């Protein structure tokens, strides 16, 4: 009898605990959602309403006019295709090179294994603003060397390469963590069967990497798609800039219609949202990948 009472008490305690956790999560979810909801709310109101009555006021009109205007001004399809011209090859190359390095440092035993891994991950720690000036000089220098300044600077190729260079460290890190969980015996049997190094990588290990590859490709696409810095500093021609720079079309020198900008921002964010919802499972599993094995 007393046992049951105790159990009841325990259950009640658990219930309270659960309620706390739920409340806690709810609060954080709201905190995270507020900026997005606020942006959405802002995008429905006309600018004139805001200057006259202030940001915190009851709206007179709510409509989708800002979306129509933003769509007209942003030239959205051209910039969107630029974004994908950069993002798709960049993601493929990053995953290819990242998996190659990860393969070598985890499957083969070198003296410099750890240092090699460190080197690739450490690159990620440098702020891009620091890399920018020397990189710019380098791009121009290489351009002058081959007689065409625009071979890397102001070209898709240059932006793709810098994305690959900066992201490959993280991709290596994640994939090497994952690869360590693949039993050594698989590699051993491949080698016993006489697989070459490349066959070992391509036909044996790569197919096993599907989960981290899927997760990383979602992450990387989002990151590269959202990136604005390199696009604006390394691309001089507006016709080659990505969607993030189209938002610049909605901002004046002094006066910016933030309602219009909010509508534009939501439209620019749509593709990443769509990708996220389609591949949500991979995205979430990507966040914990390799966390069981250091």
């Amino acid at each position, binding site marked *: 009898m007393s046992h049951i009472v105790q159990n009841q008490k325990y259950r009640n305690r658990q219930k309270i605990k659960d309620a706390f956790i739920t409340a806690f999560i709810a609060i954080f979810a709201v905190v995270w959602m507020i900026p997005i909801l606020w942006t959405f709310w802002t995008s429905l109101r006309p600018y004139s309403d805001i200057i006259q009555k202030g940001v915190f006021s009851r709206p007179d009109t709510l409509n989708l006019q800002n979306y129509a205007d933003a769509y007209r001004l942003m030239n959205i399809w051209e910039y969107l295709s630029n974004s994908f011209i950069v993002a798709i090859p960049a993601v493929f190359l990053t995953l290819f090179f990242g998996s190659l390095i990860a393969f070598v440092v985890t499957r083969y035993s070198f003296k410099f294994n750890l240092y090699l891994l460190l080197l690739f991950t450490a690159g990620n720690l440098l702020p891009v603003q620091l890399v920018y000036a020397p990189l710019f000089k380098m791009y121009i220098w290489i351009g002058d060397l081959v007689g065409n300044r625009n071979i890397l600077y102001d070209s898709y190729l240059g932006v793709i390469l810098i994305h690959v260079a900066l992201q490959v460290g993280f991709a290596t890190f994640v994939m090497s963590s994952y690869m360590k969980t693949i039993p050594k015996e698989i590699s051993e049997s491949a080698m016993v069967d006489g697989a070459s190094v490349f066959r070992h990588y391509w036909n044996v290990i790569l197919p096993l990497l599907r989960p981290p590859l899927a997760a990383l490709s979602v992450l990387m696409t989002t990151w590269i798609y959202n990136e604005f810095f390199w696009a604006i500093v390394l691309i001089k021609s507006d016709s080659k*800039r990505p969607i993030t720079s189209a938002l610049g079309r909605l901002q004046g020198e002094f006066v910016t219609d933030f309602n219009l900008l909010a509508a534009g921002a939501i439209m620019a964010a749509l593709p990443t949202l769509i990708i996220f919802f389609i591949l949500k499972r991979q995205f979430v599993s990507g966040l914990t990948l390799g966390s069981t094995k250091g």
Partner: protein
Amino acid sequence: MSNEVKENGVSRRTVLKGAAIGGAGLLGGGTLLSSCGSDEATGPVKFTARTNDETGLKIAQALVDAYTAETGIEATMQGSGDTNAFQDGISQYLQGTPDDAFQWMAGFRTNFRADQGLLVDLSENIKNLGDQMPAGFVSGATNPTDGKQYIIPTTWYPWGLHYRKSTMQEIGLDPEGLYNWDDFMKLLEGTKKKGLIGYALGDKGGWEAMGTFSILNTRLNGYNYHIDLLNGRAKWTDPKTLDVFKQFEMLIPYMNKNVLDISWDGMRDLLLQKKCGAIMMGSWWANDFKAQSQADYDDLWIVPFPEINPEFGRDSIDAPVDGVVAAANGTNPEGGAAFAEWCGSENGMLAAQAAGDTSLYANSRLDSSGYDAFNKQKLAVIGEAKNVMNFLDRDCRNDFAGPIVGVQIQNFLKNPKDINKILEETQAAWDALPPLA
């Protein structure tokens, strides 16, 4: 002679040709001559607009279209992507593969790049424009290092004291005039009594209050002292500089409490919503008043900042000049220079105006009789000034203006009592700056 040309309605191009044949050494004639010359010598011209918004792009498109129509030279334009990023990355832009001409700002931001050899010398082009380009703009566009011009001025706006005429009337002051510091104090006192903010200021961006500082300095110590101070020839620890901040401090009791939390648009909104007496600001937002109602626009007024020291009267003004420059690393620098010159000519400005540019134009041939009362007043405000400043962040080196002066003015607004320490730090920061490369 050049005026005659216009009055007769003869196209300038024909006249030029005539002038050239006749050997008349007209200044205006030179314009056409030089562009005629470049017709043969140069290929297509590429042009970058500094801004990237709808109006900015529309104006840039109108400029290149009109240029092509007039000269037959192919011209294309593009937006900068992002105005601020373009401004910040201008060094790289110019060292890379820039377009031949682009919209830019006069003052240090031009002269510094010119000293590095990144911009084309446009002195000849300015000469070609002759009497079309008022002397004040030529001097504003002149690089002190070598006395040459590297920018063709096109548009400008004045910084002045903005208020509502109705507020002045309610306080019993002349709605269209406010001359000296006493008048100004009456305005501030009167609005304060009504329970409003007297002098609205926002300095979240770190540059807005520079306008107040600069004008107080020129009113108290004169234009030369101000420019000397910004360029290291006078000391921040000088008692004269301290006086400026003492004067500034007199305004603080009339200010809103959230100075560092609002930007220039917050100041505008306070005036728009009739919550303050006056603001010191450049008048680029007058259209927002018009958007609210014609009555609000008619109520808006601008006067020069009041006189403090009769020795200097109201002889200086911040009137940032924008213009067009040509990049030395462009594929067609001569073409860029010719295009820049054309943008400064009457035809160039007419094309921009037709595309909806509401800025004030630098060209003296443009007819201002159609301006509304507020725009005419803007002309009167600048007409009174002898010395034109380009605004603090264009009058001195960029690594001093924003990161040091801007921040120290913010510090002052936070703790006016610390002013001695602030001035010492500012001087020390100037002394620690590396020489300009």
